[in-house]
C-alpha cells in the first residue's frame, strides 16, 4: 500500500450540529468506536465542528499528535468541505489529505431509528477512514487570465457592461448583430416609471461606447466560434459587409438623399415595417455608429450592376461606399465573456384569436412604441394604418405570457409598459383607453405609484383575460370597429368593448437562436430557453462555465433598472477574475496513462467539455487539465482502463466501497 509518507495517523471528528446530528446519531458512541479503528490516533465529537474552536481543534491535534490524515463526519461537502480543507492546510497538511463524511443529509435528517442511524454512520465513516489512507497531496493549478473582455449583444445591458469595464481600464470587444447598438431600448420614446425620454438617457451612453478608447465596437457582427477556457478564450467574430467603410463615412447622410430611389420603398425593419426606408439607409437618426449601410437585397447595383450610383457620386472624395466589401473574420483572445443578447417579443400571430395580421388596426406594443416615438414613422403621432386617429384604444395584457398555449412565465415588464403606453396614448390622442389585465403586477420601485397615477388619469381597467379581438358586430355601435370580447371578472359579465385600435402587450421570450448560441459558448439554458445562472440567488450573473457571465434579458425578462444593475454585476465579476490575474483550478482532473492508451478515440466524443484531444504523432489521447471538470465520464468509458482521475483513483474508490461493505 502506498500512502504517501510512512505510517498513517488519522484524526477523526464527529460534529453534533446542535441536535441536527446528535439528536439521531449517537455521536459519543461513534467517536468511541472510531478510536478503535487502526490508524486512528485521535477521535473526538464536538458541538459545532465548523465553528472557529472546532477548526482550531483540528489544527491543534495535527501539531500535537503528528496527524497526517483528517476525516470529519458532519454535513454535506457542499457546505463545509472548503472550511475543513482550509483548517487542514492551516495545520500544516495538504488540504487533499482531508475527507468528509455526510452524516446529516445522508443520515440523521432522513432516519428516525437512532440505533440503525448510528450503525449507518459507522459504515459511512469506515469507508472514509479506509479511503483517506490512499489520498495524495495534490496541488491546485493556476492559469493566467487575459484582461480583454468580450461582450456579446449591444443592448442596454451590453452597453452598460462594456462601459463599466472600459472605465476600469480594461479593453472590451462589443459585438452586436444589428447595424446599430441600442437594442430594444433604442425603440422606445419614454421609459417607465419615470417617463424619462429613452433617447436622452441612452444616446449619451451609445456615443460613449463609440468614442471610448478601450472599446472596440463591431456592429453587423456575430460570434462564429469560441474555443479555449476561462482566462484564455479564442474567439472568431464574423463581420458582415456593410458596403460602407466605417472609417470613411462621416454620417452626413447625403447618399441617402441622392439614392436613385426617390421614394423610400423598402419596409423598414427598425420601425417594424410601419415605415419605409431606401436601400441605402441608417436605422434611426441617433444610430451608433453614425454610418449608413446598404441592403444588397434591394440595391439596384447589387441586383443588376447597372445603377447610376448617385450615392457614390455624392460621396465623392470620401469614397466611403464599397460595393465589393467582403465578410471578414476577426480573431481575438479574451479572458472573460459577458453574454447580453437580450430577448425577442412573442410573435402575436401565434395567438390567432387576437387578430394580429388579420386586422390592420391590431398592433403590438413594440409597434406602438415606434408610433409614439418622435423619430418614428409617424413623427410621434398615433395614427392608424387607415390614417385615422383612434378614439378608443384597448390594451390587452399578457399576450403570450402566463399562457399554457404559448409561454407560461410572466414577462415582468408588460404591466408597466402597458400602463406607460396607456398614459402616452391618452396624452397623444385623448382617446378612451381600456386596459384588459389578469393581475396588475407593479412590484418595482415607484411602480405602484405609477399605477395609482394612471388610475386617477381616467384610464379604464377591466379585469379579465381577453377572449378574442374580432370584427363581427352585434349592433350598429360596433360597425366598423374592432370588438374586444372579455369576461369582466369584477362584475361577473361577458362584455363587448368596441375600439378603433388594439394594442397587444406581447411578452418576452428567448431568441429563436438562443439554443445555438448557448451551445457555441458551452453554457446552459433553463427549460424555457433563457440562459441559466449558476445559482438563482447566490450566483445570478455567473454561468456554469467559468469566465462567462450573464447580463440583461438573455437571462430572463426584466426591466431596464434591473438590466443595468445586472450588467454592472457581470462587469464586476469579470473584474474579479481579471484583477486576480489568474484562476485556481481544482486538481480533481483526469489524466491519461500514456503507455496503456491504445488511441481508440472513444473518449474524445464523450467529453462534455471538449477537454480531450488526439495527439496525432503519439497516437494517444491527451487531456487538457484546464478544460477538464473532473466529471469522470472518460475514466469510466475508457475500454483499456488507461484514464485515471485525481481524487478518484481506483484504489481510493475500492477502499471506500470495501469500507461500506465491511458492515459488521
Amino acid at each position, binding site marked *: 500500500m502506498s500512502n504517501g509518507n510512512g505510517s498513517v495517523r488519522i484524526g477523526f471528528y464527529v460534529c453534533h450540529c446542535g441536535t441536527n446530528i446528535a439528536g439521531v446519531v449517537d455521536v459519543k458512541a461513534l467517536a468511541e468506536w472510531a478510536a478503535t479503528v487502526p490508524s486512528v490516533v485521535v477521535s473526538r465529537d464536538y458541538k459545532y465542528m465548523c465553528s472557529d474552536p472546532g477548526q482550531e481543534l483540528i489544527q491543534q491535534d495535527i501539531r500535537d499528535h503528528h496527524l497526517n490524515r483528517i476525516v470529519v463526519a458532519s454535513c454535506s461537502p457542499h457546505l463545509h468541505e472548503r472550511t475543513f480543507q482550509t483548517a487542514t492546510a492551516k495545520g500544516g497538511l495538504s488540504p487533499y489529505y482531508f475527507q468528509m463524511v455526510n452524516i446529516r443529509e445522508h443520515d440523521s435528517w432522513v432516519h428516525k431509528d437512532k440505533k440503525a442511524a448510528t450503525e449507518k454512520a459507522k459504515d459511512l465513516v469506515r469507508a472514509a477512514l479506509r479511503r483517506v489512507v490512499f489520498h495524495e497531496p495534490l496541488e491546485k493549478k493556476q492559469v493566467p487570465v487575459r484582461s480583454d473582455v468580450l461582450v456579446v449583444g449591444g443592448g442596454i445591458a451590453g452597453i452598460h457592461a462594456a462601459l463599466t469595464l472600459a472605465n476600469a481600464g480594461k479593453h472590451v470587444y462589443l459585438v452586436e448583430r444589428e447595424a446599430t447598438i441600442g437594442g430594444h431600448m433604442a425603440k422606445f420614446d419614454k421609459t417607465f416609471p419615470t417617463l424619462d425620454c429613452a433617447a436622452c438617457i441612452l444616446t449619451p451612453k451609445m456615443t460613449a461606447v463609440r468614442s471610448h478608447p478601450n472599446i472596440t465596437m463591431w456592429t453587423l457582427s456575430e460570434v462564429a466560434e469560441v474555443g479555449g477556457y476561462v482566462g484564455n478564450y479564442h474567439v472568431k467574430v464574423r463581420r458582415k459587409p456593410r458596403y460602407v467603410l466605417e472609417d470613411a463615412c462621416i454620417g452626413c447622410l447625403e447618399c441617402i438623399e441622392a439614392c436613385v430611389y426617390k421614394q423610400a420603398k423598402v419596409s423598414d425593419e427598425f420601425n417594424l415595417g410601419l415605415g419605409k426606408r431606401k436601400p441605402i439607409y441608417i436605422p434611426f437618426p441617433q444610430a451608433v455608429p453614425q454610418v449608413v449601410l446598404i441592403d444588397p437585397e434591394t440595391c439596384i447595383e447589387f441586383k443588376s450592376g447597372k445603377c447610376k450610383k448617385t450615392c457614390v457620386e455624392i460621396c465623392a472624395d470620401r469614397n466611403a461606399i464599397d460595393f465589393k466589401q467582403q465578410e471578414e473574420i476577426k480573431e481575438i483572445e479574451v479572458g472573460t465573456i459577458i453574454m447580453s443578447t437580450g430577448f425577442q417579443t412573442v410573435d402575436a400571430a401565434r395567438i*390567432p*384569436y387576437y387578430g394580429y395580421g*388579420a386586422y390592420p388596426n391590431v398592433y403590438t406594443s413594440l409597434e406602438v412604441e415606434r408610433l409614439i416615438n418622435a423619430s418614428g414613422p409617424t413623427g410621434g403621432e398615433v395614427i392608424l394604418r387607415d390614417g385615422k386617429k383612434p378614439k378608443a384604444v384597448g390594451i390587452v395584457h399578457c399576450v403570450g405570457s402566463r399562457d399554457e398555449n404559448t409561454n407560461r412565465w410572466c414577462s415582468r415588464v408588460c404591466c408597466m409598459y402597458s400602463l406607460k403606453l396607456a398614459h402616452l396614448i391618452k396624452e397623444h390622442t385623448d382617446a378612451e383607453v381600456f386596459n384588459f389585465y389578469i393581475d396588475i403586477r407593479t412590484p418595482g420601485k415607484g411602480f405602484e405609484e405609477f399605477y395609482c397615477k394612471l388610475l386617477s388619469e381616467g384610464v379604464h381597467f377591466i379585469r379579465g383575460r381577453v377572449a*378574442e379581438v*374580432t*370584427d*363581427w*358586430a*352585434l349592433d350598429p355601435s360596433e360597425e366598423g370597429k374592432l370588438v374586444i370580447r372579455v369576461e369582466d371578472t369584477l362584475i361577473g359579465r361577458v362584455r363587448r368593448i368596441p375600439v378603433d385600435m388594439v394594442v397587444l402587450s406581447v411578452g418576452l421570450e428567448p431568441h429563436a437562436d438562443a439554443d445555438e448560441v448557448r451551445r457555441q459558448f458551452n453554457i446552459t439554458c433553463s427549460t424555457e430557453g433563457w440562459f441559466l445562472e449558476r445559482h438563482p440567488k447566490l450566483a445570478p450573473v455567473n454561468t456554469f462555465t467559468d469566465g462567462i457571465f450573464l447580463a440583461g434579458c438573455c437571462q430572463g425578462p426584466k426591466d431596464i433598472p434591473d438590466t443595468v444593475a445586472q450588467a454592472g454585476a457581470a462587469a464586476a465579476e469579470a473584474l474579479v477574475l481579471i484583477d486576480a490575474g489568474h484562476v485556481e483550478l481544482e486538481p480533481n482532473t483526469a489524466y491519461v496513462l500514456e503507455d496503456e492508451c491504445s488511441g481508440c478515440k472513444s473518449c474524445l466524443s464523450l467529453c462534455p467539455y471538449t477537454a480531450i484531444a488526439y495527439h496525432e504523432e503519439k497516437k494517444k489521447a491527451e487531456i487538457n487539465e484546464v478544460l477538464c471538470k473532473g466529471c469522470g465520464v472518460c475514466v469510466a468509458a475508457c475500454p483499456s482502463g488507461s484514464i485515471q482521475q485525481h481524487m478518484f483513483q481506483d484504489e481510493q474508490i475500492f477502499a471506500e466501497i470495501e469500507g461500506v461493505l465491511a458492515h459488521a
Partner: protein
Amino acid sequence: MANSTSGQEKKSYLYFPGCTMQATGIAYGESVRTLFRLLGLQVEELEDWNCCGATSYMSIDERAAFVLSARNLSLARQAGPRDLVVPCTACFLMLRKTQEYVRQYPSIRQEVEGALKQAGIPPMGPVRVRHPLDVLYSDVGVEQIRAKATRRWHGGRLACYYGCQALRPYAEADQAYNPMRMDELLQAVGVTTVDFPLKTKCCGGSLTGTIHPVGVRLNYIILKEVARRGAQAVATMCSLCQFNLDAYQSEMREEAHEVFDVPILYFTQILGWALGGDFRSLGLHRGIAGRNLIGQWFTTPKEVEAYV
C-alpha cells in the same frame, strides 16, 4: 406517407356512424358515404358498434362514457388496421378523449381495462380516429377534389362554420382557431367563401334543448353575421351545428324581428354535388331552411321536378 394510396389500390376506411347519422344528421351520413364512393374510397361500417358515450353519459358518469367508447375502439382495432372515420363531432371528440385520457391517467386506464376484461373484450389498441375533413384534406387532397369535380358551383357565397368539437382540444383535422381547410376544399369546386370570424364559435350545443332562449340567441348571432358578411348559406361539418342553425330560424323571426331563410348545408353535400352525386343520395332534400335556394343551386332540371 405510409398509408397513402398507391397505384390503383384504393384506400379503405372503417366508418363509425353513431346515433346522429341515423337521426337528425342523416343527411350528413348519406353525403359522406356518397362522396367517399364517388372518390373511390371504400368505407365499411364498424360492426356491432354502440353508443359513443357523449353528452348525457359524459356529464353523469364519466367512467361509463369511457368504457362505452373503449368498446368501440376495441372493435375498430379488431376490424383491422384501418383508420376510423367519424363524421359526428360528438362521437369524434368522445373517442379521441377516451384515447387521450386512458393514456394520460392511470386510474382511468385501470377502470377501462378492467371493464373490458370483465366483459371479455380485447383491450383497445392504437386506432387512428379521424374526421372526414381530415381524410378529405390530407388523404384525398384539394387537387384531387378539383380534378374530379364534374359540376362547377353556381350557387351563392358560403360561410364555412367549423364549430367547436372537431377541432378543440384535438386540433388534428385543422387549426383550432382559424381553420381553413373546409374553405380550401370548397373553393376547389368553385365556391366563394366569406371571411367568417365566428367559424368556431358556439352554436349553443344542447342549450337549444335545455335553456332554449340562450341557445337560440347564440344561433341568431351566427346567422346575423353570416348575412352581414354577404354569405347566402352556411357549410357545416357537425350535425349538431347543422341542426341548431337549421331548425330554429323560424323562431328567430319573433325574437329578433329578422327573417332568416338560410340553407344550412354539410360541406360533404356540396363536394358530393360537385363530384356528380345526385340530390337524394346526398340528403339534400332533408334541409329545413332555405329550401328554395337549395332547389335552385343543386338541382338539374330533371331533379327539380322530383323535388318540387
